[in-house]
């Protein structure tokens, strides 16, 4: 009965991604969409925070990454890229969706 957490804002602008990370349970997943994908960049100050997260998988929306010039090799290790179809699958695979707006 896990939760899919969506985060759509940069962790460098807003607190929402940090708050989402602080409220995941084992088995949950975080999906970065829109400006949220900026948090997935390797070498950024927020990367450490993501690395500390255990028990939750992290996904980033591919079309949003591409828009922002981010390639798979730019991402923190362990972040998985999905498309809109994968986004739908994630909502099905988890019992509920919590949007951290």
């Amino acid at each position, binding site marked *: *009965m*896990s*939760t899919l957490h969506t985060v759509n804002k940069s962790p460098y602008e807003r*607190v*929402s991604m940090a*708050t989402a990370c*602080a*409220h*995941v*349970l084992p088995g*949950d997943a975080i999906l970065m969409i829109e400006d949220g994908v900026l948090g997935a960049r390797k070498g950024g100050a927020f990367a450490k925070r993501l690395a500390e997260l255990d028990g939750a998988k992290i996904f980033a929306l591919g079309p949003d990454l591409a828009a922002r010039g981010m390639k798979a090799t730019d991402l923190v290790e362990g972040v998985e890229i999905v498309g809109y179809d994968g986004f739908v699958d994630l909502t099905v695979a988890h*019992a*509920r*969706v*919590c*949007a*951290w*707006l």
Partner: protein
Amino acid sequence: MSENPKKKFLYINRKAPYGTIYALESLEVVLIGAAFEQEVSLAFLDDGVFQLIEGQNAADIGMKTFAKTYRALGDYEVRKLYVEKESLAERGLTAEDLMPIVYEDEDEDYAEKPSIHFVERAEMARLIGESDVVLSF
């Protein structure tokens, strides 16, 4: 809706009042939603805790002081308001800075009971994980 089992609705309030309309319009959903007889909880975390501050007066910014509506929630059978302790502490707030919100317990001779429950972050995470529908604005 009576053929369906009740669902657990969780409203997540993370935004301060007045600077944006989200707190007010979220409250309007809660009031309408009360008529649907679902299980309703409200979560206040991050800047959402500022919604419950005592002594609000928006007259001089030309807005309605809608804070009193939170006090009426008990009459709408909305009696579970969870406030995150860590969010309060980070902002220099304590329980005493919030308005008292109570409901009348019809099972105990209409005794007034507090609607606000102070929870740790881990408990807040569990609340999310036990909900059927999470509404955030």
